[in-house]
């Protein structure tokens, strides 16, 4: 009897350990996370739809009144230049790390000059870049992130069906380029 109680006690302590260990390693080994789903559809530096009209969404939990694209990048290979031009009712950008944690976001009110123009850099690349800012980055918003690999997503509001094509064109023309 004592043996059995002892076994149950050890089991419960073990359950706590198993609970904590799985919790901590789950984000690193998930095969269902946004990164893995996007990787199955597109390579690095390529914007791809997060959800389509008829296809099941690649990244879940999106708003049906939004059109959205996402692009995977690797800052260890160089800085990333994200651009989209055109007039839309609302756009917003989010930068996520490899595990889908949001590390930076901005919306169209923040970029006074109008078009979306964002440069993602690591702090070390930023020091290099400050020495002489290339002409193409004159109007850009710089975002320092110490993340290595990550995801940048652009979301745009589709108020009604008349906007569907305009917003789709806007996002199709968005670029996510390694510089």
């Amino acid at each position, binding site marked *: 009897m004592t043996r059995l109680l002892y076994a149950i006690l050890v*089991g419960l302590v073990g*359950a706590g350990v*198993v*609970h904590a260990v799985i919790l901590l390693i789950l984000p690193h080994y998930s095969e*269902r*996370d946004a990164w893995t789903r996007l990787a199955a559809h597109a390579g690095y530096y390529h914007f791809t739809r997060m959800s389509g009209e008829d296809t099941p969404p690649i990244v879940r939990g999106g708003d049906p009144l939004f059109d959205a694209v996402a692009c995977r990048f690797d800052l260890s290979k160089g800085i990333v230049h994200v651009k989209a031009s055109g007039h839309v009712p609302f756009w917003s950008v*989010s930068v996520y790390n490899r595990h889908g*944690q949001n590390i930076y976001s901005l919306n169209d009110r923040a970029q006074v000059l109008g078009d979306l123009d964002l440069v993602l850099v690591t702090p070390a690349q930023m020091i290099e870049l400050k020495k002489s800012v290339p002409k193409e980055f004159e109007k850009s918003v710089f975002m320092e992130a110490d993340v290595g690999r990550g995801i940048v997503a652009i979301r745009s509001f589709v108020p009604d069906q008349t906007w569907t094509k305009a917003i789709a064109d806007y996002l199709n023309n968005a670029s996510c380029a390694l510089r």
Partner: protein
Amino acid sequence: MFRTVVPVFIALVIAIGGGAWSLRYALEHGLGMETLTVGPWQANPDIGTPDASPYARAVVARRGELPLGRAEGLTFHALNDSSGAALERNCSYSIAGELPPARFWTLHAADPAMRPLPAVGLRPAALQSTAMLHDGGDSVLVTASPHPTPANWLALSGTGRMILVLALYDTPIASSTEISRIVLPRISRLGCE
């Protein structure tokens, strides 16, 4: 021999089974996450941010979502109406009251797997604030129902549980400290088929 193997086996079963089950339960019920509750509405302002708890990180990885950033907006979910009863797709609900300041907001119904309900004919499966009919005041009145209703109709279809999703975009409440003083609409059941 037998007296040693059986207790070890029992301990292992409890450890692995109990650990996995308790974690699954916690992740499915939103335990261990900072939750903001306003009446029937719930939001997780920290989900997806670097300040998120290990539970919130695991939920994001498991669901395969990319949550909205603070500058983008904040999403509220309602699984129940204001009286605490589960939301059903074959029932009618009135969603009435004031909303927090935001550039605009959208409202849609989703199934328990968070897939938006399909459109009904040409009716979109979602409503948004810039195409709302107002009665003059600040408050809104939306009727979510399988049957057409006057004014703001959120078309429902099918049967089973549903989740109402209210997303506020470019809203100061996502990043401010006034998060505890938010007022959101009441959800009242009008009737079922």
